[in-house]
């Protein structure tokens, strides 16, 4: 099988679903958009929760999206070891769904921030960063108003202990996130959320192709999962 199928969830208010699908397609995947009301996922090798403003970000970003039927299916997929990537609003949804630790709060500046940031790879032994090395710098754009990752002191210590912070902002912290956190994984490492948008950094025309390192790893692992004997 050449093009592994990858689900990209679509919530009312998602707006980077097609960009994510386009980027995945360019990296050799067969992306399929899955509407939030679906109770089951099609047979896929990985799942992407895209950026946007699911359900208008009402109440708290991601708070309502977590209860959509498709999220139950995503939770089962993750529990089965399936790879799940949440980008920006997708990260917020994963935190609200408690598939990832922590919470995302409004940026300290209260401004919507839209620019390239430099990220430092803290771990390369999680599936989604397998194409990188520890210490490598990735340039990937952010565009969010609520990207300030928060964990209280106990949770932060737990995340450090479990090595769950996998990307940090290098240089100026764009949103005030605790300990410069830009991306975290669950304890098993198969669910990752990040505020930057790898799908917007897959073409040299847009300034960087570093996002392809993350999405490419997703495609690799999706292929492996679909080829694995059941």
């Amino acid at each position, binding site marked *: 099988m050449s093009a592994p199928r990858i689900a990209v969830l679509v919530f009312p208010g998602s707006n980077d679903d097609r960009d994510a699908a386009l980027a995945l397609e360019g990296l050799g995947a067969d992306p399929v958009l899955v509407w939030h009301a679906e109770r089951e996922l099609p047979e896929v090798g990985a799942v992407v929760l895209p950026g946007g403003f699911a359900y208008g970000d009402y109440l708290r970003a991601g708070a309502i999206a977590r209860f959509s039927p498709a999220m139950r299916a995503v939770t089962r997929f993750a529990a089965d070891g399936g790879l799940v990537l949440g980008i920006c609003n997708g990260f917020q949804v994963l935190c609200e769904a408690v598939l990832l630790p922590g*919470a995302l709060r409004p940026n300290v500046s209260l401004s919507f921030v839209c620019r390239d940031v430099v990220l430092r790879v803290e771990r390369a032994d999680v599936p989604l960063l397998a194409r990188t090395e520890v210490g490598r710098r990735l340039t990937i754009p952010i565009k969010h108003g609520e990207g300030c990752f928060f964990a209280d002191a106990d949770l932060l210590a737990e995340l450090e202990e479990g090595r769950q912070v996998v990307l940090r902002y290098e240089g100026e912290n764009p949103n*005030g996130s605790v300990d410069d956190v830009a991306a975290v994984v669950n304890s098993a490492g198969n669910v990752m959320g990040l505020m930057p948008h790898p799908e917007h950094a897959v073409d040299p025309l847009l300034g960087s192709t570093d996002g392809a390192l993350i999405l490419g790893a997703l495609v690799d692992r999706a292929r492996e999962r679909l080829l694995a004997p059941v």
Partner: protein
Amino acid sequence: MLVRPKPGILDPQGKAVENSLRHLGFTVDGARVGRLVDLEVEASDPESARAEVERMCAELLANPLIESYEIELEA
């Protein structure tokens, strides 16, 4: 029910409100911005109404990591 950012959590919205009030010449020592949710719930007695709203808070209305809440009942 009233939701507040937990003490110690940075509240940029509150900070902006505080700064604006200062600009207007008011003396303020702090401002925190929360959220008020008016709910209409049918229940046989206040206890069961409160229990129901507690469950709503736990499941959806507040994120316990960053927010605290209080419930006020009116018959």
